[in-house]
């Protein structure tokens, strides 16, 4: 059970476009809603209206700032959920066989009826994709909405993960990475889809598209500098002011 399949027929996963994400957290909320009302144990909240609320989420949006010396900073919203790794370390450490990677589509799932809640899989995951539910005592993780994508009771256009369906910016894409002509394969190839922490050797399936180079990321503006430089040449009032101030 906890042996990883040598290969999977499909390689379902997400492409997350860091250039497009606006950081609205709609994916976080829709994920929480869908996964609280369907697959497995609900995602509990403890002390939800109290002083120290804490809850289980399968998707969280961090916001980072990247800054090059002498340039203005760039803000990047960064949604993070399970990457459904090919070499998923969370699966092999599981002592019960509750964690498994599906051979048919590569989705990493937890059989909650077998999970003893030891938390070792969460330790093994470099990405923080697994959270132990405080109320149920079982490990929760992204299922890639396995109960939506194959669900024939919902309209065909809804058979995509909840986070993808809800994203108002179109920053999330779902598809099969084994198919070179799929939307995700094409997007990832065109935009340089990258792995998170490749040095961990997990071979993540989900890819992140780096932000496109920004035209306005330029060396930091010296507000007075150009003005003074100009007036050194032209003279005039500012030139006089500059010379006078210089003498003081």
């Amino acid at each position, binding site marked *: 059970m*906890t042996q990883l399949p040598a290969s999977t027929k499909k390689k379902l996963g997400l492409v997350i476009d860091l250039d497009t994400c606006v950081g609205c957290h709609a994916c976080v909320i829709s994920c929480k809603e869908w996964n609280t009302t369907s697959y497995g144990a609900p995602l509990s909240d403890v002390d939800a209206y109290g002083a120290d609320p804490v809850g289980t989420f399968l998707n969280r949006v*961090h916001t*980072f700032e990247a800054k090059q010396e002498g340039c203005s900073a760039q803000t990047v919203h960064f949604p993070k959920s399970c990457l459904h790794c090919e070499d998923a370390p969370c699966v092999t450490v599981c*002592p019960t066989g509750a964690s498994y990677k599906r051979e048919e589509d590569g989705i990493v799932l937890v059989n909650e009826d077998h999970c003893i809640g030891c*938390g070792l899989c969460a*330790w093994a995951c*470099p990405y923080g994709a697994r959270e132990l539910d405080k109320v149920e005592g*079982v490990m929760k993780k992204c299922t890639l909405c396995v109960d939506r994508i194959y669900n024939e009771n919902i309209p065909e256009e809804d058979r995509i993960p909840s986070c993808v369906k809800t994203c108002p910016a179109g920053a999330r894409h779902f598809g099969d990475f084994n198919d070179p002509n799929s939307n995700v394969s094409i997007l990832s190839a065109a935009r340089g889809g990258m792995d998170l922490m490749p040095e961990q050797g997990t071979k993540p399936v989900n890819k992140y598209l*780096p932000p496109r180079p920004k035209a306005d990321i330029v060396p930091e503006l010296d507000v007075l500098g150009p003005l003074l430089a100009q007036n050194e040449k032209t003279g005039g009032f500012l030139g006089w002011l500059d010379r006078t101030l210089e003498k003081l």
Partner: protein
Amino acid sequence: MHPAPSVIIFTALSGLGFGLMFWMGLGLPAVEGTTAAIFAVLAMGLATIGLLSSMFHLGNPQRFLRALTQWKTSWLSREGILSIATLGVFFIYACLWAFLDNRVVLLGYLSSVMAMGTVFFTAMIYAQMKTVPRWNAMSTPLLFLLYAAGGGALLAAQMTEAMLLLAVLAVVQAGAWIQGDGAFAKSGSTIETATGLGALGKVRLLEKPHSGTNYLMTEMIHVIGRKHVTKLRVISISLMAVLPVVLILLTDVGHMVGGLLILLHLVGLFTARWLFFAEAEHVVGLYYDKR
């Protein structure tokens, strides 16, 4: 990592229990009858208390038998199976020894190998974690084995062996601390590799995903007590190894001094084990700009 009392007690006490089993498997201490029974109960008691304690941090402990099924890939599963098997083999060996005055030497050797194997498997649960660079080293199983053999020798009243093992343990522990201090940097994981944004410049967390805390942060990110690390290391190594070695060298160890030695070692061991968890930094902390 969060230094949960359940895992500290588990690794410390089960290590001592299996360590004592290792020596008893070799026929040491050379006792018989009731005395042998008392030593055997001590060994099995420590191991059992440790193993039971590990179940306190489970979300669904009633399903623990399922943890014995995935020995092909999981060190935790292997540890569970071998620990139970070791207790079984040792129990038979100890019964024959104490009650029938028939110490089966081969069964003893088997118990010794299995006891040390269990300690090794326990250590591998931690040493396999690539996500915790401080643990992800061969020094982790070596340390666990030395703690078990050294502490076990103290319990088995094998003072010469204890002295030698504790001296080696002190050196290896100090080396592991020093090596561990540079392990995270050496692992190559940074906030830039975690986010993939290194090409854009220096990365920092601007805003957390939520204002409060979460499971990941309470479990993997432990920053309390780090400022006392040097003091705690000195206290730990002094109590668990240096003082016992000095006392063994300078005194004729009887029951009183022997008890004191074990007490000192125990306090030092628990301090070291607390540090083992509290000092370990998980790479997920990079996403929270905290380690």
